[in-house]
């Protein structure tokens, strides 16, 4: 029963009630944000969290133990959470899997992050962030979760940081799962996140663990699965890893007519290569235009008859600002590229920005 692992909402304490009253009073009496300065984690504040501890899992992966604000509504194991961090003064949002117990007695939650070369946010979270830092959170989301009723036999196939949502499920659900096989791939032994926990589970016989070090053993092929897990076809299966692994899993299960037993978590790496021009999609208006790389988005849209917010038309007044929900744009004054990953909603000035690839704009 999935409800069993969702913690009951914390009953409202006297302190919570006092904050509610303060919130109601502050609205007409004080400028916005005053109470956030005093208590950013109070009930009624926008969801945030304070990093309490950072536990290094491997040389380039870490678990962040976070004290979430009072508005945190809990999560289901396997879900992820969007995390907003300020780096060089700029807020960046990324999504990471929750790996903690859903009902930990101290109410803390944990995300596990693998730093990838060149990754701005992941490296910051693994190597730079200090305990005490305030981060922004969204509600937990995602449907890569355990099914109800719990399956008798389970197979997890993971690659690299794909182990993280599965670890979230193992920590919370293992007592409900009598038969679990985990096939995990990582480049080398030192890259295995949660190596100690997994080894302990395996040593006590709670799970059957098959670890594959791809640098020496080569990549896992799904053709090998029947040899490694003979009863694979009887198992409800969860796969999380790089795109190639997911595609292979899909093909393999489709061919076997077992797609219904397969659960995938796609971490779809979003490759945005900056080019000149691209398709401009306006999500509210439902229009898609061909945007060239040297004409401001504002002008392209207006030329097609769209009504657009506008002002100075030279990049100084900020009246034309609209959220870029996905894609890349080039500032025609400086050549600088601004990227937006899905969900980011980066505000861009349409009068001085031209598409540098396909763009989605919320307008």
């Amino acid at each position, binding site marked *: 029963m999935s409800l069993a692992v969702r913690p009951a909402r914390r009953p409202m304490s006297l302190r919570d009630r006092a904050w509610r009253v303060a919130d109601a009073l502050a609205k*007409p*009496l*004080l*400028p*916005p*944000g*005053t109470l956030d*300065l005093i208590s950013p984690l109070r009930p009624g504040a926008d969801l945030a969290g304070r990093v309490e501890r950072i536990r290094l899992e491997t040389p380039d992966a870490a678990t962040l133990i976070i004290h979430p604000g009072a508005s945190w509504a809990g999560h289901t194991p396997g879900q*992820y959470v969007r995390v907003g961090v*300020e780096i060089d*003064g*700029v807020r960046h949002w*990324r*999504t*990471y*899997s929750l790996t903690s117990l859903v009902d930990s007695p101290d109410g803390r939650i944990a995300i596990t*992050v*693998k730093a990838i070369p060149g*990754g*701005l946010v*992941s490296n910051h979270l693994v190597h730079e962030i200090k305990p005490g830092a305030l981060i922004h959170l969204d509600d937990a*989301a*995602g*449907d*890569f979760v355990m099914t109800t009723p719990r399956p008798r036999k389970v197979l997890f196939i993971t690659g690299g*940081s794909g182990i*993280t949502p599965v670890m979230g499920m193992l920590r919370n659900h293992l007592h409900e799962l009598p038969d679990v096989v985990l096939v995990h791939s990582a480049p080398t032994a030192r890259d295995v996140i949660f190596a100690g926990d997994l080894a302990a589970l395996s040593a006590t016989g709670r799970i059957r663990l098959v670890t594959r070090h791809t640098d020496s053993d080569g990549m896992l092929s799904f053709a090998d699965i029947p040899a490694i897990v003979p009863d694979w076809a009887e198992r409800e299966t969860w796969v999380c890893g790089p795109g190639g692994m997911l595609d292979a899993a*899909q093909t393999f299960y489709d061919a076997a007519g077992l*797609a219904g037993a*397969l659960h*995938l978590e*796609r*971490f779809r*790496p*979003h490759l*945005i290569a900056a080019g000149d021009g691209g398709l401009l999609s306006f999500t509210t208006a439902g229009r898609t235009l061909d945007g060239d790389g*040297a004409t*401001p988005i504002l*002008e392209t849209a207006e030329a097609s008859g769209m009504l657009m917010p506008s*002002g*100075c*038309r*030279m990049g*100084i*007044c*900020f*009246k034309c*600002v609209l959220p870029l929900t996905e894609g890349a744009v080039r500032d*025609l004054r*400086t*050549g*600088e*590229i*601004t*990227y937006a990953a*899905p*969900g980011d909603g*980066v*505000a861009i*000035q349409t009068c001085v920005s031209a598409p540098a690839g396909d763009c989605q704009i919320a307008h």
Partner: protein
Amino acid sequence: MTLVAEPRFDLDDTLPHQAHPQLVQVAAHSSRLSVVGTGERVLHPKPSGRPDPTAHLSAADLEALGRELDALRQQVLDSRGARDAAYIRKTIAAQRYIELGSRAVLLFSLFPPAWILGTAGLTLSKILDNMEIGHNVLHGQWDWMRDPKIHSTTWEWDFVSPAAQWQDTHNVTHHTYTNVLEKDSDLGYGLFRVDPDQPWTLGSLAQPFWSLLNALFFEWGIASYDLQLHSIINGEMPKDEAKRRWEAFRGKIIKKLGKEYVLWPLLSGPSALTTMAANATSSILRNLWANGVILCGHFPYGVDTFAPDSIENETRGQWYVRQMLGSGNISGPWIVHFLSGNLSHQIEHHLFPDLPSNRYYEIAPQVRDICRRYGLHYVTGSYPKQVASAWAKIIVLALPNKEEGRSRASIVAEAAGEAMSARVAKFKARRAAKRAR
């Protein structure tokens, strides 16, 4: 069942983080997007025959100057980061705590020392809210932080003019058409004659009085100006837009007056009346200070204005020159810059209205050097000196320009005579019409 979840972790790891600036040729009609002009310079003397203040610069000069200022802007953009973000957050926190503290002290404002302390604190809080924070956040100076709470599209300030209406008249009209006669209505707010090239009327005689009134109630003056009250009254504005603007304005007034003259006084109990007085006093003190800062920005002697047709096909270089010649700074210690919202660096602000205000001070020496090298004046002076200069102009320009062979007094007398006879004629005509009926 196959579940395909939303894209999840490590998105960033595939994105290049260092942008590789690569300039593309702008295919825009708006030439202000480029420093490169399309032809030879055309000079635009002003209607009165006064010369174009940029006459000594060649097209090549303008392009070179444009490139230098673009480079200066880039220099700030390249180093913009955590230090700047910490600055605005600290400033906002300071303002919020000062306001909270002052309002708490004013709960006991019946006690005179509490009244004085609370009023002083509230004045400081309003000045910070309006100038270093509000004005600059609403310019988009902090949009780059991607913090939705410190953003030009969401910020609201402790000023009766709704932020969006102020952005229209200020960011769009004033900053685009700075000091262009007939185009920049900030040049006297449609009430005052602040340039010899603006027409004189008999009503101009009263402008020192109106200007004083505007200084005292600046907040309301700016609000009715941003509301475009005159075009609502004379019916120029479409009905639905007028209604929308009026409703936004009314909502803001109810909230603000309700907070200052109903809710806080109610909480103050026996100190209700003194708390109201503290709110009114701090608003007026803030008005006087802010009005002074604004006067210093474009009205003192030495600041140039431009002919209405001078901005046709304007390049970014020309636009930069107009900003430098059309603005005036205030010199002084750190606190003057802080309390003026760094509008003491009006020249730097007008060049780069979207750069964080804490950086104007740093680039000022370089801007001044560029002015010197291109033979452009850099108007600056202390607050009292610049305020006095602006007031002198308002008083002098209450009178008509001198004309050859006529004294100012005779022009005024003639205008007064004409007005009088027009009134008499109107009166007679009305009486005649009455009789005819």
